[in-house]
Structures are given as C-alpha cells and as structure tokens.
C-alpha cells in the first residue's frame, strides 16, 4: 500500500523521487515510464526499458525511440571542456550536439554515447563501447572508439542456432520474453550443471 502510494506520487506528481527509488526499486520498464513522464527528454517513445542507474546527462537534447533498452550506460550531449577553455583562454565556445536512439535499440552496460551520434533502428551497442559516430540501422557496435563489427541479422542466426543446442533449449522455446521468474530456478540449475558440472 505504501509502495503504491509512493509510486503514484512519483509517477503522477513527480514527487518523492528518492523514496520511490529506495522503496519501490523500479525496474527498467517502470523507470522508463517515469522518464517518459518527467524526464524532460526532447522525445521519448513507449515500451522502453531504462535502468535507474542509466545517466542521461542532457535530456533536453536526447531523443529515444520506442522499445529502446538501456543498461547502465551514459548519454552526454555536451563537452564539459568548454568551461576550462573559457576560464583559461576566455574562449566563448558552444559544444552541444543531440543524441538520437532510434526504435528497438539495445545499449549495454557501461557504454558511453556522445553528442552528435545517432544509433540506427534495431542496433546493439556492446558493453563498454564509446560511441563517437553514428551507426546505421541493424548494426552491432563495440569497443572504444566504437566500431561496427557486424549486423544484427547475421548474429540472430548464430544465437538462435546456439540456443537450440543448449541442454535447456526446450525451456527457452517456451519462455515468453527474455526473463520468466517462474522458470528461472530450473534454468539456473541446468546452467550451473552445464557450466560448472554441479548445481548449487
């Protein structure tokens, strides 16, 4: 009941945010909904999943499409060096550029997206990638500086084939979505046996 009240305060009135995070521990979908309503992003679609630990430094210059999934990544649209350049050289420079994440993009843990980049529809940005240039739709991007290392359509064929060969393939074939809490204990047991020879 308290949780519902706190959640309503946060989602409907943008109040008690620290309490909301501490008490309700919003998951990616819930946090994305909060951001969609109160995050002050230039544009944000629906059906997204964004972890509360994601850092969107300049929401006013950030556009996020539909069904976008962000791990604990960082989005920065400005160059903080201009403050130093003003103090030291009295330069009056502006270094701000937008970030656009198109529909159905996944961005992994620890990735950094810099201003002036667009992540094309259906792309995957790997964990730890530092993206300084835009990437076309359907790309897999990795590394620092991030490079396109493949196409999602190719990777899907491999991952499907690999999944079919796993000892728990039958369970995966029945699973709706990427995570089913009811199925997880059995999956964990099977994976541990496969990875480490014994389950704990």
């Amino acid at each position, binding site marked *: 009941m308290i949780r519902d009240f706190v959640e309503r305060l946060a989602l409907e009135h943008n109040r008690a945010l620290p309490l909301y995070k501490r008490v309700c521990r919003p998951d990616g979908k819930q946090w994305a909904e909060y951001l969609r309503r109160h995050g002050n992003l230039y544009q944000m679609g629906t059906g997204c999943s964004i972890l509360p630990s994601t850092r969107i430094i300049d929401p006013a210059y950030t556009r996020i499409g539909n069904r976008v999934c962000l791990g604990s990544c960082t989005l920065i649209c400005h160059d903080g060096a201009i403050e130093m350049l003003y103090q030291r050289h009295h330069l009056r420079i502006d270094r701000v550029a937008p970030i656009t994440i198109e529909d159905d993009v996944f961005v992994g843990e620890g990735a950094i997206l810099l201003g002036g980049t667009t992540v094309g529809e259906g792309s995957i940005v790997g964990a730890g990638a530092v993206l300084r240039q835009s990437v076309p739709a359907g790309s*897999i991007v*990795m590394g620092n500086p991030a490079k396109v*290392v*493949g196409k999602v359509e*190719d*990777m899907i*064929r*491999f991952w*499907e*084939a*690999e999944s*079919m*060969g796993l000892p728990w393939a039958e369970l995966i074939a029945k699973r709706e979505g990427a995570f089913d809490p009811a199925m997880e204990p059995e999956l964990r047991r099977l994976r541990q046996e496969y990875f480490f020879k014994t389950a704990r």
Partner: protein
Amino acid sequence: MDKLVADLQEVFRRVFDEDELEINEATSAANVGGWDSMAHISLIVAIEKRFGVRFTASDLASLAGAGQNVGTLVKLLRAKTAAGGVGSS
C-alpha cells in the same frame, strides 16, 4: 594445398586482415588471433558469400564451441559440395 582449404584461406586472410595467415584442417579459434564470437559471425557470412552456400541452424550449431575450427568448416563445405550446393564465385 587442397583447393577448398586454399579458397578458405583467402577468406580467412580477408576477414582477419592478415595477408600471411595460413590455415589447415587442424586450425582452430585458439590458433587465429581475433577469432572471437563476433569475428566468427563475419567469417561464416564471408564464407557463405564466397562459396555460394547458406549454413543451416544445425550447421551453425556444429560450428560453435569446440566446432569453431577449419576442420568442421571443411567437412560442412564438402558435404554441401557433394550436394551440389557450392558456387564458384
């Protein structure tokens, strides 16, 4: 060197950007620098293009893990050649 292995070697050299790379049927991911899971995908796609074949899900599964080696690739390509599935371009 076997023609099929020689043709495969050309694909390997292009994908791994290494002109001197030499392979044989015993070559595995452990012997080729950079042959990780992502490079594996690029390699297989390049082989499909070069030989005019398409690997099935079952083929791809056999090329994963311990099957990530030239011997398995040659075996699969020979089977497809026998079935008349290998192009020349």
